[in-house]
């Protein structure tokens, strides 16, 4: 059987995948995550295909500049994460801590910006159930005039709101979870818990983190830009 020091699968060579348990487990788990987002994103695609008229043009309701910045942040957090992993491989404790810390901070910023985005949208009158009666957006929609460089707003955006909030909030939830685990890993790193020989924690949390980033790449395109 393996010793915690060596990143080899515990079982003998002829059995086993040549990948240590935590990494294999994380990949399997990510498989289930893919299916979870398939349920949400798939429903979105299907509903939008069935009811195209319920969606506003890009940028009309959602604020693309802000989200663009947010997307960029998440990409940065991915690179800081992978840098942390590289540092861990080199046994460079100083950089490991620095990069992990950066990742935590950027991740937290992403979530805060998303919360801010929600607050603004709610204020303007866009909720999971659709327009808020009497709100700014509702009036614009009633007016039927062209709006923010697009055509008039759809008179009902029930499905738009439902899918937008469900998908983005669940992604946000994943980021939050990621940040929490990342804090755990960072603390352990500061305690010198990772060596060049054994830095499973860093690699495994990294996989999760990059996956969440990957999901956002898809979401940003199909939810905000299309």
């Amino acid at each position: 059987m393996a010793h915690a020091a060596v990143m080899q699968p515990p079982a003998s060579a002829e059995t086993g995948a040549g990948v240590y348990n935590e990494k294999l487990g994380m990949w399997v788990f990510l498989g289930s995550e893919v299916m979870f987002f398939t349920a949400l994103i798939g429903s979105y695609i299907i509903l939008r295909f069935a009811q195209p008229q319920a969606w506003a043009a890009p940028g009309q309701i959602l604020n693309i500049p802000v989200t663009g910045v947010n997307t960029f942040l998440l990409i940065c957090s991915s690179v800081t994460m992978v840098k942390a992993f590289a540092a861990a491989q080199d046994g460079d404790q100083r950089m490991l801590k620095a990069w992990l810390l950066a990742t935590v901070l950027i991740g937290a910023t992403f979530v805060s910006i998303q919360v801010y985005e929600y607050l603004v949208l709610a204020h303007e009158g866009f909720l999971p159930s659709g327009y808020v009666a009497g709100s700014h957006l509702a009036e614009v929609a009633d007016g039927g005039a062209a709006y923010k460089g697009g055509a008039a707003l759809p008179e009902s955006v029930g499905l738009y709101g439902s899918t937008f909030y469900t998908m983005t909030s669940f992604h946000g939830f994943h980021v939050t979870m990621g940040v929490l685990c990342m804090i755990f890993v960072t603390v352990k790193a500061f305690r010198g818990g990772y060596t060049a020989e054994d830095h499973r924690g860093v690699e495994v949390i990294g996989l999760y983190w990059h996956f969440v980033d990957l999901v956002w790449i898809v979401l940003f395109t199909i939810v905000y830009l299309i």
Partner: protein
Amino acid sequence: MATTAAAFDHVAHAHADTRSFIRRYIFSTDHKIIGIQFLIMSLFFLLVGGTLAIMMRWQLGFPGEAFPGGGVLPETMAPDGVLLPEFYNSLVTMHGTFMVFFAIMPLLVGVYANFLIPLKIGAPDMAFPRLNMVSFWVAMPAGLIMMAGFLVEGGAAGAGWTMYAPLSANPEYSGVSGGQILWCVSIAVLGLSSILGSTNYITTIINMRAPGMTWFRMPLSIWSLFITAILTILAIPILSGAAIMLLFDQLIGTHFFLPPDGGQPLLWQHLFWFFGHPEVYILILPAMGMVSDIIANGSRKPIFGYHSMVYAMIGIGFLGWIVWGHHMFQSGMNPTLGMSFMISTMLIAVPSAIKTFNWLGTMWRGSIRFHVPMLNAVAFVAMFVIGGLSGVFMASTPVDIQIHDTYFIVAHLHYVLFGGSLFALFGAITFWYPKMFGRMMSEFWGKVHFVLTFIFYNLTFFPMHQIGLGGHMRRIYDPTEYEFLLPLQGLNRFITISAILLFATQTIFALNFIISWFRGKKAPDNPWEDTGVEWSTPSPAPHGNFPTTPTVHHGPYEFSSPLVEEDYLMQDRRVSKPATPAAS
């Protein structure tokens, strides 16, 4: 890494065990204890589900008559013992939900994946023991949340275990609000448990097999549990996602499945069945695997066509993903789509045929021992075939027009789920009981329970084909409302009486199970003279499972092998001329 630490606690093999009572029996990370915890939990929910069924049956057999002892039920369910229609809907829904999600699924996967995988592949424990513990302590609350439905205002969920929207999505339609919400929450929570569990099973099987335990030396039970875990990992998240969308429709006013604002009721059905059909194979594959082990043992013969058995299960696993539409033939789904779903559904008969006939081939020219596990395993084959064949009727779209949503479906699903999964489980429980508890269950009472269950089971469910063809719809509270169903009421009564007897019979099993735990005769290491690795460690298996990591030298079913004079050759027993490491 928290989990890592735990993972390697167990590397030091079976040792004097110094854990506190709590760590040992309540928050244990030992896969065997967790398996037993799941066993107790799911048997309890099996009992609950059965009890609900009997109440339903009473109303169907004797509409409007007071349910004996029903007086204790509150006004909102059954004023002076007569069930209310809304309560009946909750009964159907909860019966299906408990049986599928909290009885059979945990029994097969929670109990036997947990208990058998490490023991049968020669590992000290799961890859992530602590995660394993969490998966039980998440499943348990899920079950309690589901039961809480009966206590809340408006009663438990009442839209059928399939939760078709919009009925399930809008309290104004169903009259149930709290119950619906609890259903969604409970299912989402249970989903988490299943995903954690399956991650564990897959990792363990891939990475923790003992030296010599190559893929094609794994017992079919392990193969089936492996494929099942993969199906679970991929199917359950779809249900969780759908359940969450349904929850949002109820709570925060989204419109996923509510037509007024463009929602699509059929979308729910597609999502549910895209999960649902793989789910039903999750409910049968482990049964098939364990039955294969037991039949080989009972026939004292190697399993017939081991490789084709494996490929057949993989085939069922694949096909299971492209047939979900067969639940929606009459739902207004695109008929052309229905046609392709019909063909793919029909094709599933092929791998199932392979398995059926290989079981027969295993018994052929065997030396069959009639121990309780074998009896139940053979009953599994006999009954699963009936259920499978009735499935072919529904697979034919035109015939399904007549039998869809009738008792023909109810008959089908009970033949595969009770006649299939549950008989297999009665066998499996008896077979591995000694390794779990170190004692044998009573052979005599086991046989009595088997014979009576087999008879009453068929008397209960076979006539359902008949009334189904007659047009008897599912999920109806009072058949006598339809004058074209009146001629069938006699049969309904007969079914109800058989069902009550069937239920009563189960007390034999319950007593046998409980009493044997304390009074059963002490079990030797290998009571069934089986070949599996788990039988070479003491009964009950010690903490850490094996005194020393076993090395595997043979395929899984070397019964009556010419290499030795006993009629079984254990996988980890080395004989003078070592078998080649290649697949047997």
